[in-house]
């Protein structure tokens, strides 16, 4: 291997990268086209199968060419304390990542990497999508050299900034004793399981079977719908009884699935505070441990539904700065806790929140009209037409979506609040339940204001405030308030000396 490799010169990855790039594309293609591939495997000699095989080979060939070109067009180098990448087959893409923004440089080796004796380098900037940078394959020595340069730079910066409040030192100097904020007993878990959203599980099960039926229908020509239709029309009384029985059965199954899932997933959940970080440990079979550093927390959300309110419990989510893709994975979820535990957690994370006096702003009532139009009027018209066309008496019931939308729209508008304090922003809402979302203003990343012609006529705008772990969106806000909020947030962020993470 050439030891004179100079990272300050634009250079290509290891030639072995071609193989890895190719594998990557093939994986993407296979993931997209597995149903078609399945046909070929089931029925390889049919005419369809041959054509598909030819197409698949063609695609494989094109991917090979594409990988080769992508490889030759890909250069990386270091310049002015930035990691730069030039790439692009059809378009030219130049990407610069300043060392300051780099959170970590990780190496990953899967089997192919090990076989080829290269590593994939992942540069995490804890930023937006597209800002994470991955070098598919470079030699281990070169990767280490690269990491060393970045780390050396960061160490230097750290030493020169040591007197300042720098991001968390790797090892806390005085390890504090972990404090247990809450733990869930089996009784709590059952309450949580009962009050989970069963409709969602039902919808997932339903969608899964529908999707499965659809796939089989297309793939193998099994006409499931036709068969269903035949059986139901042939024995209409039996069909009716079956439907009547199926509904409670279906609800019962969804209910048990959610309950079991909740208990398994959150079994023995414990929520700890360890010095400057929070940790959630849970699970019966696979014990999951997730932790978040306090400084990385961006958004705290707590919600309750009508069912949850009966038990007096809230679900709490703590979101941290993360790549948007992995938002779900990196948030701490506490599926159920009581009011005082919510207060206690908030108190630990944002001590000033308790005494904060908020000014609250409502949504303009005209939002109800928009919501009724979109979710009530239009669907009602469509259902009405359908009922009229099919002459189905039962289908007329679906037009009840119109009064339902009026009611829900009214509840929504009445409950939505944007609460502002010099340090905090809280968004409140919920149609039947209640939800609260809290962000600290100095952690805001950007502010977006937009307005439609309808909104402008009434002097309204939509305000979106983004952090690295989620956003607060508030449509139909008084335009002056929205603008003032934007100007204030900008002022606050630009004056802030504390790091946002």
């Amino acid at each position: 291997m050439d030891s004179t490799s100079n990272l300050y010169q634009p250079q290509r990855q290891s030639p072995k990268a071609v193989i890895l790039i190719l594998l990557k594309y093939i994986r993407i293609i296979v993931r997209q086209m597995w149903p078609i591939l399945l046909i070929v495997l089931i029925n390889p000699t049919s005419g369809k199968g041959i054509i598909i095989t030819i197409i698949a080979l063609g695609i494989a060939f094109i991917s090979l060419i594409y990988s080769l070109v992508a490889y030759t067009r890909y250069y990386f180098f270091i310049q002015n304390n930035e990691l730069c990448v030039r790439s692009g087959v059809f378009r030219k893409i130049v990407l610069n990542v300043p060392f300051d923004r780099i959170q970590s440089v990780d190496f990953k080796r899967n089997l192919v990497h090990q076989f080829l004796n290269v590593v994939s380098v992942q540069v995490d900037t804890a930023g937006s999508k597209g800002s994470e940078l991955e070098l598919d394959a470079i030699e281990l020595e070169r990767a280490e050299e690269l990491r060393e340069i970045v780390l050396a730079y960061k160490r230097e910066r750290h030493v020169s900034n040591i007197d300042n409040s720098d991001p968390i030192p790797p090892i806390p100097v005085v390890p504090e004793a972990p404090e247990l904020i809450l733990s869930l007993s089996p009784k709590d878990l059952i309450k949580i399981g009962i009050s989970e959203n069963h409709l969602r599980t039902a919808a997932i099960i339903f969608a899964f079977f529908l999707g499965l039926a659809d796939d089989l229908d297309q793939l193998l020509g099994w006409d499931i719908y036709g068969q269903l239709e035949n059986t139901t029309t042939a024995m209409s009384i039996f069909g009716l009884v079956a439907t009547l029985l199926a509904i409670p059965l279906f609800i019962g199954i969804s209910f048990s699935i959610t309950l079991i899932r909740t208990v398994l997933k959150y079994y023995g959940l414990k929520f700890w505070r360890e010095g400057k970080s929070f940790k959630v440990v849970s699970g019966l079979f696979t014990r999951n441990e997730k932790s978040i550093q306090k400084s990385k927390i961006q958004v705290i959300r707590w919600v309750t539904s009508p069912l949850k309110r009966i038990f007096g419990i809230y679900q709490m989510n703590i979101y941290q700065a993360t790549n948007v893709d992995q938002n779900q994975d990196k948030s701490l979820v506490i599926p159920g806790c009581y009011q005082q535990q919510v207060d206690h957690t908030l108190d630990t994370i944002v001590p000033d929140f308790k005494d904060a006096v908020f000014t609250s702003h409502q949504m303009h009532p005209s939002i109800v009209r928009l919501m009724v139009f979109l979710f009530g009027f239009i669907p009602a018209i469509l259902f009405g037409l359908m009922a009229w066309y099919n002459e189905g008496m039962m289908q007329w019931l679906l037009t009840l979506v119109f009064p339902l939308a009026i009611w829900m729209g009214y509840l929504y508008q009445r409950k939505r609040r944007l609460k502002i304090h010099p340090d905090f922003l809280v968004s409140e809402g919920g149609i039947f339940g209640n939800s609260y979302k809290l962000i600290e203003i100095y952690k805001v990343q950007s502010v977006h204001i937009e307005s439609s012609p309808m909104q402008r006529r009434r002097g309204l705008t939509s305000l979106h405030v983004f952090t690295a772990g989620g956003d607060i969106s508030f449509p139909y806000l008084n335009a002056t308030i929205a603008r003032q909020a934007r100007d204030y947030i900008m002022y606050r962020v630009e004056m802030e000396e504390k790091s946002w993470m």
Partner: protein
Amino acid sequence: MNQINELFTNAQIDLTGLPEAEQMEMIPLEPAYKKVRYISAALVAVIMIFAVWVFAFFQPDLSPYGYTGAGLVTLLAAWMVYYNGLVFHYMGYAIREKDITYKSGWLWKSMTTIPFNRVQHCDLRQGILDRRFGLSKLTIYTAGGQSTDLMIPGLLPDTAEKLKAFILRSTEQSIEQE
């Protein structure tokens, strides 16, 4: 209804003294970019129009609905091309000492502001049409995710390069102060 028209009822800061993003002078984009918008919209429109007319032509039993529909789509496509060119005049950006703002839209207006001390990185891109007309796109990324990334199209490559350098410098300075 009791409408509150103040941001804070217990304001500790003089809100009227804050710099207002609304009063900034917006820098328009390069006029050549209007052509790029027209051309790219026209390409889409031509494909759309072609597709619907072919469809209407080969489905004669649908007439006159087929042709009426095709006519409507044609009008819609023409309007889309016109609108795409028109909104060019409503696009612009403004740079202040500590942040950058980009606005766009004629009917649906939008305005995004990003403070320099939240910028993660920037990149410059050129599409095929951009290259032809000597233009560049500057995208500014924050940690707030894809929806907050700010893309300024229709810049001269030189201006884009300078802007990028300025933003990165300001970002670095703001970090040093922290």
